[in-house]
């Protein structure tokens, strides 16, 4: 048993690699700070466009959303980070990762917000419009506040997925938590940094999972 600890939870190795891991954790958090607000913003735009567009417009948007979803997130990420330079565009790595993952996650935020808007009865629209509110004012003051509340568990669920998604950044050499753990493992030839990184991810995300459960959320998120 003590041999097991020496190998997988070696205190010396963990202490020596903690600096690297903390730097990685900070990069992971920065990625989250781009991807979650960005995804929400573009998702809200998508949901509004689908709500306000005529039927044919909403249909083409839903095909566009499904086209993006057909890409595995990692493929989208590699395509953008390694493909854009061939167009002469070379965004800094964090921004490239942010763009790719925002594109991916905004399609899910968009569908969730749209479901929230659709969950409000049409009579609410009619009542608001009859008081003299315009379409945008009705959305802002009547529909969205109720609709967003209805899909709060799903929004939290997709935020969990978005944070998990940022671990993909390690594949395109962004020095995030997972990447730094691999580096530290290489330096010490000991898997403790990897285990520590996995525990850090758990410490970061377990509370979110519990919160989603409290909100009554499910694993029923679309693919």
């Amino acid at each position, binding site marked *: 048993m003590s041999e097991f600890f020496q190998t997988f939870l070696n205190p010396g190795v963990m202490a020596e690699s903690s600096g690297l891991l903390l730097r990685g954790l900070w990069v992971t958090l920065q990625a989250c700070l781009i991807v979650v607000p960005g995804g929400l913003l573009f998702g809200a735009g998508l949901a509004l466009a689908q709500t306000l567009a005529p039927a044919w417009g909403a249909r083409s948007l839903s095909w566009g959303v499904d086209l993006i979803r*057909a890409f595995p997130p990692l*493929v989208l990420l590699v395509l953008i980070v390694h493909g854009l330079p061939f167009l002469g565009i070379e965004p800094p790595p964090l921004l490239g990762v942010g763009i790719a993952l925002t594109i991916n996650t905004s399609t899910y935020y968009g569908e969730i917000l749209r479901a929230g808007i659709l969950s409000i009865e049409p009579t609410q629209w009619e009542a608001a419009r009859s008081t003299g509110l315009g379409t945008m004012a009705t959305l802002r003051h009547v529909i969205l506040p109720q609709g967003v509340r209805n899909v709060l568990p799903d929004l939290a669920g997709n935020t969990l997925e978005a944070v998990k998604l940022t671990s993909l950044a390690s*594949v395109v050499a962004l020095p995030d938590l997972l990447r730094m753990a691999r580096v530290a493992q290489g330096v010490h030839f000991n898997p403790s940094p*990897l285990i520590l990184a996995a525990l850090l*991810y758990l410490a970061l*995300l377990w509370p979110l999972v519990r919160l989603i459960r409290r909100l009554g959320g*499910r*694993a*029923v*998120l679309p693919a």
Partner: protein
Amino acid sequence: MRIFFDPEVLAAAWPGIRSGIGVTLGLALTSIAAGVALGLLLATVRALIQGAPLRPVGGLIAAYADVFRAMPPLVLLVVLYFAAPFAGIELSGFMAAFVALGLVLGASAEEIFWAGITSVNRGQWEAALSTGLSRGEAFRRVVLPQAVRLTIPPLTNRAIATGKNTALASVVAVPEVLNQAASVQAQTASPAPLLLAAGVYVALFLPLVRLGRWLETRFHIR
């Protein structure tokens, strides 16, 4: 534009990517089958031990579902592939990906089956038991068939997500579609193989994503 669709590079990349499609499909189908089976098994155990002295087992199963929902699949894969050998467990890239994807899908599937089972009215259990069926029979013949109907749309979506996550296996050198494309890209310094791989993924998954959307509206329980 030519650099993105260079016919020579595309021709050189195609054989590898074509063999990668087989690996992608093989990994996807085996991990989906294993994950769904694991989820169904755990949810069944959790349903049948209610009230028995084995109650903590239910808590353990719920904890498993929580942990693997909180863990990014790539982190799990990297731990299985790069840390497990230190414990004397040497997994091939394919096996590590299979285990990681299966465990992650198993956690979601358990949660989905469990939600389906608990949504079946208690009266159904009582009625079934009162006709003389055993607990196991009542579960298998009365409760489960009704629960499974509700689980089809979310389970389809998680299965599709698992299929897409097979691309993660490229990180541990499994020669699936993305890995094949990346290795040709490295040799030719051209983005064409990646675009070809992207086209393959769209051809594989766009119909499935549409199917998932259709199931959701048809069963209307999102």
